């Protein structure tokens, strides 16, 4: 069955083509069913591949010749390894659930089938990304995934903010992609081939100089930073919330943003070989985690809070990978995919029920009105906060353990603080939405059935996936063997899980005190309070800085060049033309009709000729 893995991405592609062609004629039901069928087929196949992979843990590689570059034959094909299979499963499962959920959420939208077409295109790109055997093919689908997110963010074309957000998303990720592109150029020349297997072989055999490996690793990491919204290039992710919520759930929570982490994991031997790269990944990761967590504290838009929490959680995964916690990182990626998707879908349900209202200050008291959504949201919140029975606890715990064991104590402490903040802001969100009385104006509406049961399935996964690695480290061993990365087997110090749980509970309690029981007037936190609050509310003014530093300077440079272009170059040309026509004017004025002046001019011409040429000769 593993040999047919290449078919998995084709189902969504076929769905995409069908939906694009039948854009006008398909009814909503038909369109949704085509989309869902496509993803379901790929889900079932990925499950089959996953199961087969469980028994015989052998990587399967199949490639064909694509483009001859000088002596090097660049190939295309698929490679199915443990990480790939896992990602296939996660991506297709979450996609399937979001596809079903979207059936309800997007009802009544006139570009319904186009929406499903774009979703299927994205699914195709994501699935083929995880199957790519070489750097070029990864880059190829990497960009296609970017296009998918661009189209979906800007799906509601009539909204100017959606247009700006889509453009921003694509441009910022493109900056990261260009770094990745340069990495490809470097590897091609230094390694002589882009096949990952050969790259890793070259790294082990020491054929590459250490600084080359570091530059390649860092460049790839910058690509990952762009896609996963890490610190310098994170500004596009919160704005991407302009897209419909299923998009945010699928792309900006589970799959695409995780692609960055996947990429670092996929090229892990490169990172292992250069300690500098590991430090960079770790520190950038942990800084993003704490940075995003602080901003999430004061956001008032439900999706913005979750977006910053995603950025923070990705920071977690990054610094896990950065501190040799390969298994921890991937484990958290998987669990995060489920509970963050759940949170987003629940948020979508909340938005639907409050008539498209996204500002949490207009919500409240929904626990009474819609208990199921409330309880699902609670499960997601508990998972992300790291409360023991749920998966979040195990994976976050594994990350912190990895950081601790790797000796990165500062990173460990910052990680712990971030975990505490995560618990706090998630439950701030929970109590503001579900606690207290309903502050919104419009009546609360019921949520369609078709949106609820995907959330339930996700809730089940959010709970269950924790135990995949708990008792037996089965997940770790399965993931690691075969690709030469040594899993950390040291036992966990006893105080770590206990401390973590206490910390989360304290966080939840504080959130309850501040927001649940209304002991402190919630409004006080609303308006722009003291400086630190304003700083956080304005997202550390990062957007403004970027705008002034890059966009404005580009416009200025453009102005200077435009002026240069118009005045210097055209000025030069006009100048020359002017001189020639001026000479012409002199010539025609000299031609004044008087025969005598003609003779005079000729005489003077003759004298000049005589003097200039024969002066030397005659006067000697």
């Amino acid at each position: 069955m593993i040999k047919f893995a290449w078919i998995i991405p084709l189902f969504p592609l076929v769905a995409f083509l069908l939906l694009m062609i039948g854009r006008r004629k398909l009814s909503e039901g038909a369109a949704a069913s085509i989309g869902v069928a496509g993803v379901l087929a790929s889900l079932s196949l990925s499950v089959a591949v996953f199961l087969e992979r469980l028994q015989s843990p052998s990587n399967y590689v199949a490639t064909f010749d694509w483009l001859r570059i000088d002596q090097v034959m660049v190939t295309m094909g698929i490679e199915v390894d443990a990480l790939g299979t896992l990602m296939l499963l996660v991506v297709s499962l979450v996609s399937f659930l979001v596809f079903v959920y979207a059936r309800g959420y997007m009802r009544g939208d006139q570009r319904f089938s186009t929406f499903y077409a774009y979703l299927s295109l994205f699914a195709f790109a994501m699935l083929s990304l995880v199957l790519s055997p070489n750097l070029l093919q990864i880059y190829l689908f990497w960009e296609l995934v970017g296009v998918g997110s661009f189209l979906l963010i800007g799906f509601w074309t009539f909204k100017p903010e959606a247009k700006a957000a889509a453009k921003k998303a694509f441009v910022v990720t493109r900056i990261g992609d260009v770094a990745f592109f340069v990495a490809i150029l470097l590897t091609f020349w230094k390694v002589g081939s882009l096949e990952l297997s050969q790259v890793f072989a070259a790294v082990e055999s020491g054929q590459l100089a250490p600084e080359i490996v570091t530059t390649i690793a860092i460049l790839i990491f910058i690509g990952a930073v762009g896609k996963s919204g890490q610190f310098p290039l994170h500004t596009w992710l919160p704005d991407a919330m302009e897209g419909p919520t299923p998009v945010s759930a699928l792309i900006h929570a589970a799959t695409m943003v995780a692609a960055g982490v996947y990429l670092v994991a996929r090229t892990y031997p490169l990172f292992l070989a250069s300690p500098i790269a590991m430090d960079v990944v770790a520190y950038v990761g942990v800084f993003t985690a704490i940075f995003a967590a602080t901003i999430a504290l004061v956001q008032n838009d439900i999706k913005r809070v979750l977006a910053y929490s995603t950025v923070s959680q990705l920071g977690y995964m990054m610094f896990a990978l950065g501190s040799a916690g390969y298994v921890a990182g991937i484990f958290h990626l998987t669990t995060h995919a489920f509970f963050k998707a759940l949170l987003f879908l629940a948020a979508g349900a909340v938005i639907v029920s409050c008539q498209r209202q996204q500002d949490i200050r207009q919500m409240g008291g929904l626990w009474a009105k819609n208990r199921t959504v409330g309880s699902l949201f609670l499960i997601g919140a508990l998972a992300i906060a790291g409360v023991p029975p749920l998966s979040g606890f195990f994976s976050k715990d594994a990350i912190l353990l990895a950081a601790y064991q790797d000796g990165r104590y500062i990173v460990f402490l910052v990680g712990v603080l971030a975990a505490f903040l995560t618990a706090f802001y998630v439950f701030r969100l929970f109590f503001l939405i579900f606690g207290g009385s309903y502050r919104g104006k419009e009546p609360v509406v019921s949520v369609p059935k078709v949106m609820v049961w995907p959330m339930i399935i996700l809730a089940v996964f959010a709970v269950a996936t924790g135990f995949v690695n708990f008792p037996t480290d089965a997940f770790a061993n399965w993931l690691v063997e075969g690709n030469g990365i040594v899993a950390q087997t040291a036992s966990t110090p006893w105080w770590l899980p206990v401390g973590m749980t206490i910390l989360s509970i304290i966080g939840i309690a504080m959130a309850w005190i501040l927001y649940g029981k209304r002991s402190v007037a919630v409004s006080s936190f609303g308006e722009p309070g003291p400086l630190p609050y304003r700083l956080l509310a304005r997202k550390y003014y990062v957007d403004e800085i970027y705008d002034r530093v890059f966009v404005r300077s580009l416009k200025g440079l453009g102005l200077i060049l435009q002026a240069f272009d118009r005045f210097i170059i055209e000025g030069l040309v006009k100048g020359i033309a002017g001189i020639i026509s001026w000479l012409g004017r002199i010539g025609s004025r000299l031609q004044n009709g008087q025969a005598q002046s003609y003779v005079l001019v000729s005489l003077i011409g003759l004298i000049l000729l005589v003097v200039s040429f024969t002066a030397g000769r005659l006067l000697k």
Partner: protein
Amino acid sequence: METLLQTLPTWITFSPLLGVILLLFIPRTQSGLLKGVGMLATLPPLALALLLFGQFDGTSDKIQFSQKVDWFTLTLAKESGVTGSFTYNMGIDGLSMPLIVLAAIIFSLAAVASMYIKERHKEYFILFLLLEVGILGVFMAHNLLLFFLFFELTLVTTFFLIGIWGYLSREKAANHFLLYNGIGSAVMLIAFIVLFFLTQTMDFAELKAILANPDFLQWIKEANLQWLLWSTLIGILIAFGVKLPIFPFHSWMLRVHVEAPPSVVMLHSGVMLKMGAYGLLRFGVELFPTYVKEIATLLAILGLVNILYGAILAFRQRDLKRVLAYSSISHMGFILFGIASLNVIGLQGAVFQAVSHGFISALLFFIIASLYERTKTTMIDELGGLSQVMPILSGIFLAAALALLGLPGMSGFISELLAFLGLFDRAPVIAVIGALGLILATVYALRAVLSTTFGALATEWKNVKDTRIVETLPMLLLLGLIIGVGIYPSVLSDPMQATLQMIASRMGG
């Protein structure tokens, strides 16, 4: 069939003349019939070009289908019997074959795009087909004087095409076009004559052989005529630099792109700029490999200036046509990167970029033409939200913009990849700075397409109709080509492999 193959170049070059003869007999009033015949007349060269593509043997780097007929001989010195012979010498090799196929395709599509021409169809199509003869001839001529004749034929016909059917200040544009290219071809003529004087031959193959053999170079060194060869190379670079255009000589091209009628702009941006690239490769790199090797870094820097200058200014423009004009300058910079890389990858990238940019810019200008047909304006701030009214056109426009910024899966990416790969080996720093151009490309491409298709719909475009099938079909064909070449590039890159290998090896690349 055999004789056809033997004289294929002449057949391809002069097949549009069949259309011209037909058009002569059709009275001026039948504009419908004229348009029909005009469009059909571009099919014979297309069919022959595809036949050529089929028959072309990708493995040999020799000149194929070559045809040599004696033209005339000049005796330079009767006593010592020194004579220079001129022959009608046509041939095709790996470097020119892709460009010929590109030209044939773009011409057919531009003929379809000529439906927007409103008056004087008869003269238009006659000039159009003569231009096609000129361009196909340029790519196939292997005698320098013959090359020059075809080159000037394209110059004169385009002058008329711009001057009569252009937009507002078309005459100014036609004049600028004429003067700039006039200077370029004047410099080229002097360079060719100097070469003729040094080697007593105008045949490309003989010339190449003589310029390479050591005792000739020895003679040059003794007669210290080095400066003459150097000035010839500089002359050739300037001549084709004006055509490409390279940075300082580009202002004429902007005016032409804005003022010329849409189908002519498609041709100009799609094919005629590539004559500059072809000339640089053929007469610069092939004839003077060792000299080009010395100034490779200069070429790379020129390419870099082109890329960044074009990209930054494209970002500032308010008129869609000017945005595309500046983006063409930026994309020509990639060709310079390819040439400056001096290895087969870079050269492949340069030719690939020539072909892929041909398709992409032809498609974009076709879209703008149909957009202008409906909204009578190409000013970005006057347009907006057109996707709600013209979904098909906006969809294709978005796809074309993505191809422009080099999205993988489309031909633009492959050419950029090859060009950067090639240059990275020789000048990594310039390549990395050039990569910034990719980001800028994304910025201006998206700004242009989003501000016209996305966003709020202005009231006056309420009742604008979407594209008719006769317009969508060529657009989709072009898009199909772009994606096809993007997905399976070796269909284009294999035939030119051998020739470029030979060129690169002469430069020790």
